[in-house]
């Protein structure tokens, strides 16, 4: 019999031992966040992938249209960068849904859910990891901005608060992607949904051109887009001339999205698949 070939001595290793107490909800969430960090470490290209496009956009817009749109490229980058930061991070939120959908399809969630841990901990852990990823991507964009002449009047503090506000909004948006991630059949369809939702959301905003330059009927719509509000608040915070009502609106929109989507996401999570 050569049936044992390759296997080590498994005796003792396979004997049922003492079973530890299940982890606390907090510890389970942190463990899942650790998994998300490992993914960033092992697949750094994914992060690179999501910042390359916005960097191209920034360079293109700044040097080709910058002069026409704001007088000089240097003046335009002051306007553009906070908006590009918003766009970049809002776009990455889709990966929350893509990642979740992939894990579910692969059966990873079956394993997780058969373990004696706080059942929604994989969702929260993944989300923590995502927020970390958003900050990382955001920092790269800001760094590139500094290199090509972005000089925020609000100083580092303004930049950090602006990034924080963007993270709050993106966190809320991620919950919508969790819902989409659980409803769709494949990661590809989740990705397609991002073009349907995020393209109009980010392009029908004042990220690239000032609201005042748009026709009146368009202004009415674009002015109410939460992404416009977020970009305006981010610009204000970074340059030290923020209108506080913009910040409040963004926070309110984030709270509303979270309040509606979290219960739906939880219900879907516990639903049978």
């Amino acid at each position, binding site marked *: 019999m050569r049936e044992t070939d390759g296997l080590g001595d498994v005796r003792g290793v*396979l004997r049922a031992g003492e079973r530890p*107490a*299940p982890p606390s909800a907090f510890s389970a969430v942190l463990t899942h966040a650790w998994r998300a960090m490992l993914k960033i470490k092992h697949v750094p290209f994914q992060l690179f992938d999501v910042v390359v496009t916005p960097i191209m956009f920034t360079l293109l817009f700044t040097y080709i249209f910058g002069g026409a749109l704001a007088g000089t490229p240097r003046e335009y980058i002051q306007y553009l960068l906070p908006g590009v930061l918003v766009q970049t991070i809002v776009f990455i939120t889709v990966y929350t849904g893509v990642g979740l959908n992939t894990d579910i399809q692969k*059966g990873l969630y079956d394993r997780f859910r*058969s373990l004696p841990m706080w059942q929604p901990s994989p969702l929260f852990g993944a989300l923590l990891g995502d927020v970390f990823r958003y900050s990382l991507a955001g920092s790269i964009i800001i760094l590139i901005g500094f290199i090509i002449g972005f000089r925020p009047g609000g100083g580092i503090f303004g930049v950090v608060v602006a990034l924080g506000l963007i993270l709050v909004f993106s966190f809320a948006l991620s919950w919508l992607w969790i819902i989409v991630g659980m409803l769709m059949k494949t990661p590809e369809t989740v990705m397609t949904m991002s073009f349907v939702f995020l393209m109009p959301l980010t392009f029908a905003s004042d990220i690239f051109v000032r609201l005042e330059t748009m026709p009146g009927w368009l202004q009415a719509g674009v002015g109410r887009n939460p992404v416009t509000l977020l970009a305006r608040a981010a610009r204000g915070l970074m340059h030290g001339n923020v209108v506080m009502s913009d910040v409040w609106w963004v926070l309110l929109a984030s709270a509303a999205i979270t309040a509606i989507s979290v219960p739906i996401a939880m219900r879907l999570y516990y639903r049978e698949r």
Partner: protein
Amino acid sequence: MSRDYRTVASLASIHRMTNAIETQELAKSFGTTRALDGIDLTVREGSVYGLLGPNGAGKTTAIRILTTLIKADSGRAIVGGLDVAREPGAVRRKVGLTGQYASVDEDLTGTENLVLVGRLLGLSWSEARRRGTELLEAFALSDAAARQVRTYSGGMRRRLDIAASLVIVPAILFLDEPTTGLDPRARNQVWDLVRRIANEGTTVLLTTQYLDEADRLAERLAVIDHGKVIAEGTSRELKASVGANAVHVRLADATQGDAAREAITRVLGDGIMPASDPMMISARLTSTAQAADVLTSLAQAGVDVAEFSVGTPSLDEVFLALTGKPSKSATEEVER
């Protein structure tokens, strides 16, 4: 006096705990599909039990109910003495699951996957790491410990997947088609593992589409089809239910099938069993002495025989007799 009480109490607990899994009338539908149509199973503690059935029979559905992933529409399931519907949390502390599709994170390394599961079971970082290393060694994965799982072969992935269910050795282990898609060597390794796991006292419920696998590993098995148990017992009992003795003839030349069947019919009358492999002919014997006559008759007809054996019918034949269609492993062999 007090001693007697203790004996009575422990006897009662022994009696209660001798079945690791018990289901009654377990049913589950997805829309109009009746995935489980009233399943009764009894799995003794410490045994290896096989659920055998073709695609769509309901094997995965049964396992998902027993591991608390989904809820049955009706019926009852007791796992480790606990009702899965009433105490899912407590059931999760007794079971381990290796699903049908390797449920390990491909981006992570082998060690990281096991540490992840260890942490989620409540081990400390250092304990989880120690246990991970120990398991990787036992499963012959030490060399690949620091490699991303996406670089693993199918067999390595499957072993890691099973190891992940053993980070804390569960009282009851569920393996959903543990060897599907593995080459013969990797399959042998998994079989060996299952035997060793069972030897250490864990109850194993495994599903399979391979009759030889159920035959080799499982002490008892249930054949399920369309969500119903169509036969249950030891593989010996199942074979006996189809016919006590049989003669198996493997032809050397496929074109001689008709001649061979004719030669056999001359001796045995109407004993030929339906088979899925055109090179194989099996026929029921009323006595073993007839085997010699069959061989003579085949020789006289000029049939080239590659293999000739007498024994109980194979599980393939049991399956054919029970369901009227060949099992998947048999059809695959024909396609090959």
